[in-house]
């Protein structure tokens, strides 16, 4: 291939990359800088069930505006199904309907929730008090429990707290255990509260954690005060009062979250992801989503988006490696091993990652040193090192947990096979070239990993790579150009220094 062709290709990549980025910037008003950010949660509910061949009706409760969160946009994916949103005083639901469906079915509902402190929840109508009479001997147990808690409390909220502690806490007695054989804790508490004339219901919420997948809703107990206007939320097991900041209330009407008619084995799971959006973009990001030109990762389902957020950073790490090797001349052990280590650092945070990496490699080297006396075949030895690495990781994780260092738990994010090979290579290097080379190459790998981490973890870089796919083409062009660089490496200026100074031997 001629040089001209090469530069044309590089130029083309550059132009297309820049053009698509500018187009996204202009048309979708995505800013170049992360700028003022609003946190947005993207939550996706996936409904799975097996349809029985007849008409199917699926009702899913939907979240509404509430304290701390505001609904921005919502979307559904459900081919062939009719869809209607419904709202009443108990909350909103989505209803999917189809005349005929058979086999495994999947429906998606996704919602963007904007985190905003000024969001208020709409006024909630307290539920009617429903009392279902207990059968003997449960009725006496129930009334005894109510009496005890009532005596120790001053109002509805404290009554609820005492009741929950009597049922689940250390004070749990025979009465509570008897009743728990009939109902689950949350339902039991609500039933007893109702029996005592307190307006309460069981509601469902989702604990938001970035990047979690296949989550389910948790039960909470909503208790109204005597006037029926104010309410509080209790954890059904601990009796703790108040809503955790990361709890999104999904269903607050006391109804079922998912109802499927005409299907079996139905379940709903949630995946979620948070990202920061520019305040202005947060409001109107979905209106042009169907155009072909909107070639954006944001049009993918959430699970894939979360994956791509990381994948799109790998070229940045690769560019860093190319830069450090071609322009600087740093030696690393394994060409792209540092990128994988850097990816692990993103999960673990830098200090924990560094300590974890050094611990694993150091202990691994000692054990590998012993293995070399056993005279094993290469594949068997590397496999033994892999198991050693896993053992080290498990031991450190357990130790860290025992000592209350939750950061130590993230050590499991390290790519184990890569670490095993690193240890094997370093060990051979040690035997053949001595500890100095191990330090040089190991240090080089670590420096590269740290720099790659810093580049990949930079908020601006994350913003740019995730929002502008054209940047990948620009990165490609840059790497091609670097691959064509015939000049000196930075470290060669030091290496070849002696040649330049003894012009005249003394």
């Amino acid at each position, binding site marked *: 291939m001629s040089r001209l062709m090469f530069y044309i290709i590089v130029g083309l990549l550059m132009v297309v990359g820049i053009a698509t980025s500018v187009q996204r910037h202009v048309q979708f008003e995505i800013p170049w800088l992360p700028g003022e950010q609003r946190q947005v949660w993207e939550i996706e509910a996936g409904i799975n069930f097996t349809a029985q061949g007849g008409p199917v009706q699926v009702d899913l409760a939907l979240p509404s505006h509430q304290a701390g969160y505001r609904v921005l946009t919502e979307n559904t994916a459900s081919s062939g199904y009719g869809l209607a949103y419904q709202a009443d005083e108990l909350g909103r639901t989505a209803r999917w309907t189809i005349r005929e469906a058979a086999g495994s079915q999947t429906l998606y509902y996704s919602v963007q929730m904007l985190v905003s402190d000024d969001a208020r929840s709409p006024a909630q109508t307290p539920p009617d008090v429903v009392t279902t009479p207990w059968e003997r001997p449960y009725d006496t147990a129930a009334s005894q429990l109510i009496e005890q808690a009532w005596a120790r409390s001053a109002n509805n909220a404290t009554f609820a707290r005492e009741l929950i502690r009597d049922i689940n806490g250390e004070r749990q007695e025979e009465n509570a255990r008897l009743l728990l054989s009939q109902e689950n804790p949350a339902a039991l508490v609500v039933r007893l509260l109702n029996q005592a004339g307190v307006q309460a219901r069981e509601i469902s919420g989702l604990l938001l954690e970035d990047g979690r997948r296949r989550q389910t809703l948790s039960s909470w107990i909503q208790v109204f005060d005597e006037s029926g206007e104010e309410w509080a939320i209790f954890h059904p097991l601990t009796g703790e009062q108040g809503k955790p900041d990361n709890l999104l209330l999904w269903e607050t009407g006391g109804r079922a979250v998912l109802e499927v008619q005409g299907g079996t084995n139905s379940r709903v799971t949630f995946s979620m992801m948070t990202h920061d959006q520019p305040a202005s973009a947060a409001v109107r990001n979905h209106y042009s989503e169907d155009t072909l030109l909107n070639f954006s990762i944001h049009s993918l389902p959430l699970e894939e988006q979360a994956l791509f957020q990381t994948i799109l950073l790998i070229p940045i790490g690769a560019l860093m490696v190319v830069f450090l090797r*071609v322009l600087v*001349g740093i030696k690393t052990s394994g060409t792209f091993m540092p990128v994988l280590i850097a990816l692990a650092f993103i999960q673990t945070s830098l200090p924990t990652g560094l300590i974890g990496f050094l611990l694993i490699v150091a202990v691994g080297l000692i054990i590998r040193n012993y293995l070399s006396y056993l*005279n094993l*075949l*290469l*594949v068997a030895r590397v496999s033994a090192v892999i198991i050693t690495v896993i053992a080290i990781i498990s031991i450190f994780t357990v130790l860290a947990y025992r000592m209350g260092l939750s950061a130590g738990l993230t050590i499991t994010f390290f790519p184990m096979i890569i670490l095993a090979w690193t240890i094997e290579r370093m060990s*051979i290097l040690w035997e*053949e*070239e001595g500890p100095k080379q191990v330090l040089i190459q190991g240090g080089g790998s670590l420096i590269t990993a740290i720099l790659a981490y810093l580049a990949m973890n930079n908020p601006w870089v994350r913003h740019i790579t995730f929002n502008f796919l054209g940047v990948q083409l620009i990165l490609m062009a840059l790497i091609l150009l670097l691959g*064509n*660089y*015939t*000049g*000196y*490496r930075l470290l*060669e*200026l*030091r*290496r*070849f*220094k*002696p*040649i*330049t*100074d*003894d012009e005249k*031997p003394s």
Partner: protein
Amino acid sequence: MSWLKNWTWPTRLRDKGIIGMNRRNIRYIGRYNSRRLYPLVDDKLKTKLLAQQYGITSPELIGTVTTQFGVKHIGEMLTGHAGFVIKPAKGSGGKGILVIEKVEDNVFIKPSGAQLSLTDIERHVSNILSGLYSLGGSPDVAVIETLINFDESLMDYTYEGVPDIRVIVFKGYPVMAMMRLSTAASDGKANLHQGAVGVGLNIATGAALRAVQFDRPCFSHPDTGHDLASLVVPQWETLLNLAAGCYEMTGLGYLGTDMVLDRKHGPMLLELNARPGLAIQMTNGEGLRRRLDLIERQPDGVPAKQRVAFAQHHFARQSELVDSDSVENSDTSSTGA
């Protein structure tokens, strides 16, 4: 700014004609060494058989071990051989080369005096077979060849190991040469980055130009203390012709040839390298750039003898190791050669 004194400017390197890694990789290896020819030099067994075919002398092959089963029979293979070298066929950078100088009562003695048992030898061969030392960790073959009885005239210049001579052959022209003398620091191995002394050689005469250890100039062998200025490689022209012939043998345009001088057989080809290092510039105190540029302007199809004569004429230089009076004397005599 004291830390800057260990650094130089790119322009000064360019003036000296120094070639960097990137330039070597793209401009020379990438352009002149066709990928499909690499196996010829990356596999030492193939190189050896090819060399025999082209009449290029190389150390005698004792045998090869290709299976883990064969490792058990290595003892029988080695009986009767006083000294031998075991190397991986696809090893790189001198990795996995085991030199045994003599055998006494089933104890194998390395040049350093370290003693190995037959089990150690078997383990080493087993490691070679499983690909521990080969490029990419692919399964390998162990090649066992006789130890070279290196020329006595060079005995004083080396410590323990065999000194080898590296000649860079570009398009068949020998462009630069150096001798690598093993030291205590390099464990008898002739690898510069392990601490061997590199001596730049005058292409015209085979006489020493300049010496470096760990990239820094030196004037005598650090272990034997012998003055390096007097070093002249015997049978220099035969050696250059041998090196130049490797171009026809492999077809590789940018080639590093490693030769040794045997007491009986003269210059011998030890191995070839399709990615020769750049340290040769340090030992010669000169960049490769000008010489390579000159060769690039030469037409193809010149016979080996003429190429060697061309190189000897154009790349002659003065030694930096001797003082100026004697330089002039030796210079007048060498230019006549």
